[in-house]
């Protein structure tokens, strides 16, 4: 199902747009549930047997599974259709945004005024500007004209089609699930200032303000148009969140000025060098006793070879060139390298709050350990669960 956006910049769809988008959602659901299940059965029933005959053992890495799956018809069918469906997501929203661009820009300028600070001197990193990330036309920045929020609108409307309802009715399931987890798991945290890195349209920034109404919540991103859209989107929903155009590698905030630094679905779009710089900056701006928390794809080391292969598909075929290199890392080690004490590291899996309900999230909060290696962890299909990890900034001596 296509999500109906819950704010005043929701698109004015005619009957053909609605039907076209509904089809893309249905097609993606067929691919990501039914064809994905077929691919798993093909692996278990023939691919793994062929591999054993040749190698005398089962595949031990996602890369080996990938290479073994390439010739199989179930892989070819799933993959060719998934690429086509991904492009159809954007095809189903770009014309809608284009024809309402003037009205969207005017609405965003009115609602977002005073809530967003752009930096005209900021150089957009090549990881955003050089490629159409996940085939999104124009990537996150589009033509980068100040006042043009169409890249934000394309992303918002695209997610509404892409997510098939699995990212929540306000596309904020990740933020809702994560902020509930943190606020209930660590009641002593009580943050006064919260920073969301690489926040795009602020859809997962807003839930933090709802969980911590007293806190000042700031979202940053390099994409100015997305931020102008984010400011208007949050304001239209009556949530007081501020946005600033900034590179997470060079934060324009003083040392020890935040209690919580968050990101979601951000790190896998960065090079490892960049992640190192982002973590170092996160550590610098955290107060003693503060928390760095990331929602991300689960690491390969925690997954079986098939599950790892399944997620890494996006790296090779969905314009996500940094995805596998990130998933090959141990997040605990990434935190340690940035100077966080190893004993302050933790990781967890939260059931989608929209998919499973509040009770299931609260059960995860109460659990001592979490199994990462499930087909549902990080996989956008029925039953999705979100992976997260964090590190505490050491308290002052």
């Amino acid at each position, binding site marked *: 199902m296509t999500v109906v956006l819950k704010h005043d910049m929701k698109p004015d769809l*005619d009957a053909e747009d*609605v039907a076209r988008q509904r089809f893309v959602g249905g*097609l993606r659901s067929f691919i990501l549930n039914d064809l994905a299940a077929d691919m798993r059965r093909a692996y278990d029933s023939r691919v793994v047997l062929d591999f054993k005959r040749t190698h005398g053992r089962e595949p031990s890495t996602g890369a080996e599974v990938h290479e073994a799956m390439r010739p199989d018809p179930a892989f070819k069918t799933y993959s060719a259709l998934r690429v086509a469906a991904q492009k*159809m997501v954007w095809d189903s929203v770009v014309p809608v945004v284009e024809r309402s661009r003037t009205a969207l820009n005017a609405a965003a300028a009115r609602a977002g005024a005073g809530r967003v600070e752009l930096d005209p001197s900021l150089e957009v990193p090549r990881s955003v500007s050089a490629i159409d990330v996940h085939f999104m036309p124009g990537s996150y920045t589009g033509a980068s004209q100040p006042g043009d929020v169409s890249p934000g609108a394309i992303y918002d409307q695209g997610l509404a089609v892409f997510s098939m309802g699995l990212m929540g009715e306000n596309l904020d399931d990740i933020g809702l699930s994560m902020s509930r987890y943190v606020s209930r798991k660590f009641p002593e945290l009580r943050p006064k200032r919260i920073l969301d890195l690489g926040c795009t349209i602020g859809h997962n920034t807003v839930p933090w303000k709802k969980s911590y109404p007293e806190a000042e919540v700031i979202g940053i991103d390099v994409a100015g148009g997305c931020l102008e859209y984010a400011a208007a989107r949050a304001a239209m929903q009556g949530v007081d969140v501020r946005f600033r155009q900034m590179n997470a590698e060079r934060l324009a905030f003083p040392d020890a000025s935040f209690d919580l630094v968050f990101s979601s679905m951000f790190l896998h779009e960065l090079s490892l060098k960049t992640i190192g710089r982002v973590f170092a900056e996160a550590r610098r701006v955290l107060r003693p006793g503060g928390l760095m928390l990331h929602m991300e794809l689960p690491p390969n080391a925690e997954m079986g070879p098939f599950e790892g292969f399944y997620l890494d598909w996006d790296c090779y075929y969905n314009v996500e060139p940094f995805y596998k290199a990130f998933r090959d890392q141990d997040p605990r080690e990434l935190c340690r390298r940035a100077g966080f004490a190893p004993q302050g590291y933790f990781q967890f899996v939260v059931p989608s709050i929209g998919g499973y309900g509040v009770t299931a999230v609260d059960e995860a909060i109460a659990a001592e350990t979490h199994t990462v290696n499930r087909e549902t962890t990080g996989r956008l299909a029925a039953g999705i669960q979100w992976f997260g990890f964090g590190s505490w900034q050491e308290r002052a001596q």
Partner: protein
Amino acid sequence: MSAADVTPIPKDAPRGYYGPDGQPQFFQDPAMDRFAAVVVKLAQEFWVVAERLDAIERLVAAKNIGTAQEISRLLSDPQVTAEREAALAKFIARTLGSLREP
């Protein structure tokens, strides 16, 4: 970081995974990959027509006449939405069922 540093595919990706146009290639003949996209797009266009027809049929049945406003009103009817979602699932199973493993 220079422009050459960021490419749409990872550095270690075997070239054989991509066609001469740089797009992902899964079938031996890259034309097959293009036809796979054509097939689902045709199915999408068919669905668009089917949904329009559905709207007209409903309105004709109800009032014996169908205005654009009346068609548009159907879009926010949760009952119609639920019925269309269910019909689409059946439509996809019927048209794309031959892609499934036996």
